[in-house]
Each structure stands twice: as C-alpha cells, then as structure tokens.
C-alpha cells in the first residue's frame, strides 16, 4: 500500500513543486494565440530578454545555496554597475573596452556594498529577504546622494551630456550611445533575421560554468552546509558569518556585471530607475522557473526568464484582445510579477510548516503503532 501511495505522492509532488511553472505554461498556451503575435517576433523577443536578464537572474543563485533566500540586494550591485557606467561615459570611453572598464571600476564598489549587506543580513537571520529588500531602498537613498548631489560637485564629472544643466548631478536618462549592444554585436550572427547576441551568451555560459564549478569548491560546499543547518556547520568549524557574507558579495558582484550587460543591451540608462525593478523582475522570473526560496538551479533561471517574459510580452496584447484594453494588460503584468512572488513565498512558507507537521505526524503514527503492538 505504501508503494502505491508513494507513487501517487510522486505525481502529486511533481505538480505541487512545479505549480508555478505549470500555471505559467498554461497561461502561455492560452494567451499567445490571443495576443496575435508572430512566432518570429516572440522568439526574437525571448532571445533578447534571455541575453538581457540571464546574468542578473543567475546572480541570485548563490545566496539561495547559502540559505539566505532571494537576494533582493542585487539592486546594490546594479547601482554599483551604474556608477561604473557613469564614469565610463564621463571619460568618453567607447565600445567593448568601455564595457570591461565599467566592470573593473564598479567591482570594488560592488564588493564593498555586498560586504555591508552581508553584515546587515547576518544581523537579521531569518528575516533576510525583507531586510535585503529594505536595504535596497536604503542604499538607493545613498546612491541618490552620490549621483544626484555629489557627482559634478564633489566628484568631478565634466561631460556636459551626462551632467544636469544646473552643473552637478547626473541626468535622468543617459544615452549609452557608445556602448549600445557593443557586447551583443561583438560576434555578429543572424539566423532568419533574428539577431543573436553571441558574445553575451558566451558570458552567460561562462557564468553557468562558474556556478557549477563553484558548487564543487570547498567554499561552495561550506555554503551548502551553512544553508542547510547553520548550527551544524558552525560546530564543524565552518565560519558561518563569513561564508554568508561571501555569498552576498559574490551575488552583488555578479549583479553588478549583470546590470552592465542589461544596460548595454537596452542602450539607455535611467539613472534613478533602471536598478529599482531589477530585483523584483529577476526574482519573479526565477520563482516562475520553479525555484523556491531554498532551492534554485540554473535550469530554473532559464525556464523562468522565458516563461515570465512570455507573460510580459504577451499580457498587454492579450489584455487588449480580451478586455479591449491594453492598459489592463499593463496592470496585469505588474500584478502577476508581485503576485507570483507572494504566492511562491507563501507556498514555500506553507510547505515548510506542513513538512514540519508531517515530520511530526510520521512520528505519531509510529507512536500509535507502538501503542498498538504493546496491547
């Protein structure tokens, strides 16, 4: 009987564990025909968006391994990346060298921010996600102080194209004309009229290899141990706090590179907004891909980006066909992005509580049986 049960359980478990991606696949199946978009267009869109978001979404994986949940603090890395871009733009550097130079400049800042965030999160164990979320807002204030008030006054910025007319502070939108698609087009390739950003995908592939390799290092193993049980890890002599800080530092640095990739693809930088939504979109995408707060893989990241962005592209059109209004679709995708995080987090918390209960119940059956045999 128990075998049969476990088989049923397996199927049920598969559906429960993959409820979110399944929901999105169903959505896609219904909404794509309604949106009346050509497949070529969708494919091209997805390729662009994969190139644009992969690095950022993959940046989330390492804190998950270390048991710190979804790192909303990747916006810190994004901000660091933008600071690097501002300098590169100011100096008038162009193309691929500009891309790498921006990474080199922003890296120390990203490390520093990640390190601070790690310390803060060590003080908020069990509340990492809310804390990293608020941390993003807080550092955003500091970023404004730096970019809007100090740049051009305290920090020398001379390029009048990026400085506000008042003489200091960076403009709201910076045209990254020198940088636009420079990496994407470094190795040009077109298939059926669809442009493939080969170099970007190579960078993403390198990151994937890095993540796979990293998991097999001592540090990766330590992170897994810390993520599963901090106390046991501590007792085994693993420096728990330091390991957690390192996880956040790595994530922040990757996010910094990710943001620079993202912006070179978009081609314009909204100095005060480009980073804000990054955390939310990346996390929503990862969760849509079937990841949970405690477990996330590279596969989740890619599946998630595709499914989430299909929703993103299709929703306004489908909304228009269905409700006669594109605006509804706009709100719909905002709703879905947030709701998906809410649902995924709630499911995870609920499952966690249920599993604890289940573990207790399994003991109880044991007790009853034991009671039965002794009679």
């Amino acid at each position: 009987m128990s075998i049969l049960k476990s088989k049923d359980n397996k199927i049920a478990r598969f559906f429960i564990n993959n409820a979110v991606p399944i929901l999105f696949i169903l959505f896609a199946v219904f909404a794509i025909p309604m949106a009346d978009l050509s497949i070529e267009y969708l494919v091209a869109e997805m390729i662009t968006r994969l190139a644009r978001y992969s690095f950022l979404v993959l940046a989330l994986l390492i804190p998950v391994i270390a048991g710190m949940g979804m790192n909303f603090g990747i916006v810190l890395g994004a901000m660091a990346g933008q600071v690097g871009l501002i300098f590169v733009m100011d100096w008038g550097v162009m193309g691929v060298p500009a891309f790498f130079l921006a990474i080199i400049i922003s890296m120390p800042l990203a490390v520093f921010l990640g390190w601070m965030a790690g310390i803060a999160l060590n003080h908020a164990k069990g509340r990492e996600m809310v804390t990293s979320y608020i941390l993003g807002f807080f550092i955003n204030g500091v970023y404004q102080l730096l970019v809007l008030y100090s740049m051009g006054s305290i920090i020398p910025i001379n390029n009048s194209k990026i400085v506000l007319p008042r003489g200091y502070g960076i403009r709201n939108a910076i045209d990254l004309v020198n940088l636009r698609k420079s990496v994407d087009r470094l190795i040009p390739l077109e298939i059926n009229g669809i442009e493939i950003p080969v170099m970007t995908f190579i960078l993403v592939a390198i990151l994937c290899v890095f993540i796979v390799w990293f998991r097999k290092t001592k540090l990766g193993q330590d992170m897994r141990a810390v993520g599963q049980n901090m106390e046991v890890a501590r007792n085994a002599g693993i420096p728990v706090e330091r390991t957690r800080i390192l996880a956040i530092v790595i994530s922040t640095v990757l996010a910094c590179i990710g943001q620079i990739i993202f912006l070179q693809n978009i081609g314009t930088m909204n100095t005060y907004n480009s980073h804000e939504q990054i955390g939310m979109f990346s996390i929503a995408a990862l969760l849509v891909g079937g990841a949970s707060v405690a477990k996330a893989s590279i596969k989740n990241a890619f599946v998630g980006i595709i499914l989430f962005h299909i929703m993103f592209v299709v929703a306004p059109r489908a909304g228009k066909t269905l409700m006669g209004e594109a605006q509804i679709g706009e709100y719909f995708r905002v709703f879905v992005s947030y709701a998906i995080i809410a649902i995924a987090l709630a499911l995870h918390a609920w499952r966690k509580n249920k599993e604890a209960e289940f573990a207790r119940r399994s003991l109880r059956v044991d007790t009853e049986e034991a009671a039965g045999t002794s009679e």
Partner: protein
Amino acid sequence: MPDDILLKMKNITKDFYGNQVLTGVNMELKRGHILGLVGENGAGKSTLMNILFGSTVIKETGGFTGEIELDGKICNFESPFDALDAGVGMVHQEFMLIPGFQAAENIMLNRELTQRNFWVDVFGERLSSLKNEEMIKRAQKAIDTVGVDLDAKTLVSEMPVAHKQFTEIAREIDREATKLLILDEPTAVLTESEAEIMLSVVRRLADMGISVIFISHRLKEIMQICNELVVLRDGKLVKEVPTNETNPEKISEWMVGREIGGGPAREAPVKQTEEMETVLKVRNLWVDMPGERVINVDLDIKKGEIFGIGGLAGQGKLGIPNGIMGLYPAGGKVEFQGKKIKLNNPRFALDSGMAFVSEDRRDVGLLLEEPIDWNISFTVMQTQEKYLKKILGGLIKWRDDKAIAKLAQEYIDLLEIRCTSSKQLAKELSGGNQQKVCLAKAFAVRPDLLFVSEPTRGIDVGAKQLVLDTLHEYNEKYGITIIVCSSELEELRSISDRVAIVSEGRIAGILSPTAPLKEFGALMLEA
C-alpha cells in the same frame, strides 16, 4: 602498565555560579577499553563530558579546576576543535548532521579532501576544488570500519535513525587522530535490534584500540559491553569498578542512593489510596512530544492524592501532563470526574477543572514581556471570565486592572514572590520567583486537579522547599488533586502519596514513596 592509560582526569571540580556540579572527580581510562558512565540526570555526566570535550560553555561559565591528561600530556582544550585535534571525538545526543548532505559529505564536513587550483592562490584555500570521488571512497572506508551496511552516497534525510548515528561515529573514526570517543546515549533513539548492532560497533572500535566513554541509562548495555563503569551522583564520583565485579542492582543503588539528609525529608503521612475515589482515568494514552514521547499509559488518579511521576529525562514523564492538557498531539482515552476529556484542546482541559504548571517556564509558562499581574490572571480571565467588568450588557468585557492587581498582590504575599510590584515584568524575576508566578497562575484558576511539571527545576534550595510546601498546603487545604512530574526522585518521595516511574514512554511501575530506593532504581533503569 602505566603506558596503557590513555586518559586521566584528576580532581575535576566545576561550579556554575556557586552551584557545585562536580566535586573532585578522578577517573582513568585504559587504551581500548570501554568505560560506562552512569548517573541520574543532573549528576554531572554531561558537565564532565563537556569539560573533556572542551565545550565553550565551560569556559564561558568560569572554567574548571583539575587536570586532564591525555596520552601522558596535560591538555587544556580551549574549544571542541582543540579536543578534536588532540584525538577526542564526541557523538552528541542530537545529531550534528546536515540532512540534505550525503553520508560522505557529512563525514568529511569541513575536512573535505581538496585539490589546489589557480584560484586558491588568488582568493585563498576555500576555492580549492573538492575531490568527490576520493571523499566517497574514504567515507565508505570509515563506514566499513564501523562495520555497517551503508552506502556513503545515501542522503542523511533518507536514513533511519540508526544510520545517522553510525554516520556520526564514522565521522569521528575518520579523523585519524581519534583515540577517545565519547558516545552520549547512543542507543536512546534506537530500536532493540539497531541497538544490538550499535553495541557491536562500539565493541569493534574498542578492539581497534580506540577508548570509548559510553553514556547510557540502559544498565543492561553497560553490563554487556563496558570494561569498567563509573557512577556519578550529585557531582561526585561514587564508584569506579570493573563491570564484571558488580550487578545492576548494586549500580542502581549507587546511582539513586542519597547521603543521609541529602534530600528533603518526608513530613506528612502517606495517604492510603486504595479506597479513594478515582478522579482521573487514563487509558492507552500516547503523546507525541519531541524528546518525551509517551507510548501507552494507563493511570488511575485518586481524588485528593498527590501523585508523583518520576523517571529519567527523555523517558516520557513530561509527555503525560502535556498530552492530557492538550499542548502536544495525543490520543487515547482520558476521563476526568467521569467526563471524557477532548484531547488536543487546552481550553477543554482547563474548562474541565484541570490546570497545568509547565516545565518550560520561559516558552510556555510565562509572558516574559508582561507584568506579573497579567501572568497570574490571564488564564483565569480567559477561561472563566473572571476579573472582567461587563459594560453595555456584556458587549464589552473590560479588563478590571484593579481586581487583577489585587489578585496578584494576594499571591505575591502568599507565595512570597520577591518583586518590586505586581507591575514588574516577568522576565526580570529570578527563576524561583518565576516558578511561583507559574504556580499562582494555576492556583488562580482554582482547579480540581493540578499538573505540576518539574516544579523545582533551576531554582535555589529555599525556594524549592517553599514551592513543595505550597503544593502540599493546597492539597491539604483545598483538596486539590496534584500530579507532580519531576526528575528528582527524592522530591517526589517527599511529597507524593504514590510515585509512578516512567521508562521508555511506558509506566514501569507504581510504588509507595516509602519503598526502598533500590526498587525505584530498578524501575528507572529497567534492569
């Protein structure tokens, strides 16, 4: 041959803030020998082992005096890591394993076999790559040394309890330096057949030349595998003998026997309970309380008696009141005053006229962040709607703060609770006074039956006597039936009319408090 001595502990003395837990303990352990360490809870076994293992608790609480000599060298372990380096391994009662890891990964945890690569030079040792294959091989070897059939690639979360235990042992074995292994109740969570394998594993380790300190409550096991045994009582070493020169009866006598005048003396006469009316009838009770599982308990409690429940920690005595009062999932039949009690429903139990003083003062017994008067009055207010003013025809049930303060003051005076006022926060009180607040809370309900769990745990001697006297007084004056669960046998014997001993979740027997100590010991240790 003095060379044969691996471990010497000389004159080990330790106190926790003036509370003497170990006094002048001397013991020796030979290479390849198994030493059984027995004693009641609180006899000082864990403290002694913590000292040996260099636990940080010891250092934080002021260190210890005495000397530890391992392999002829004087050791002073600053932390467990020092102890591990010196070759002392310990397997704790609660598993120190990571559930999502394979056995091999756990065995090699933080001692992974690594290979340097370029990044090590840049970012440090922690970026070296793991040699998974070799680790699995090595872990498998350690497991094979232990002598059990377990694949090193099995996930810990998918293992039965025994295998987890073996994994822990394998981890200690794998440290090449390990000369001494401390096993803290390794068989407590095992089934009988698993325990058998466990014992043979321990024997095999000893044959390999590793010395083992084996802590267990099962005297049978001690007799079976240990070369010598040491009995601790009240922080003193009472006996160190070769196992073949003794028998379980003697051991249990050494364990529980107090020095004259050591425990509280019995004053009141023992009530004759045979003729008394049964007030609480318990049949086939099971309780799923972690660490205190109750399996199948039948009890008949008589009206007006003080009923003691004793037994070693973790055997299930605490599960009985917690189960009946609905705090942990339970099943079976419970009848109180002829009425069937709905289990898993604290409100129902309270409404039926039962009250409970929990052993867990901080987590269950008190609202630490609230004042004393709240703590005392809350239960009675919620269950019996007392100390409330009804306004607008009962639409608003207004808390009567004055009446609450008055009630609290009564109990403060009665139980001599030391506090600045009834508005003082519970967390600011000392342990004894907190316990009195818990009692006051239960008395305020005016119950017909009162469960008291570990009434004197963690409080000083003066307060202890007062708490026991108060219980006695309430029993006499108001005829409240009281069920006391305690790990302190002497305490139970001093106030109870009958004492039940719980062992492995079952009632091992019920004795009169005047019965000889030996009998209690025998029941506790199921010898």
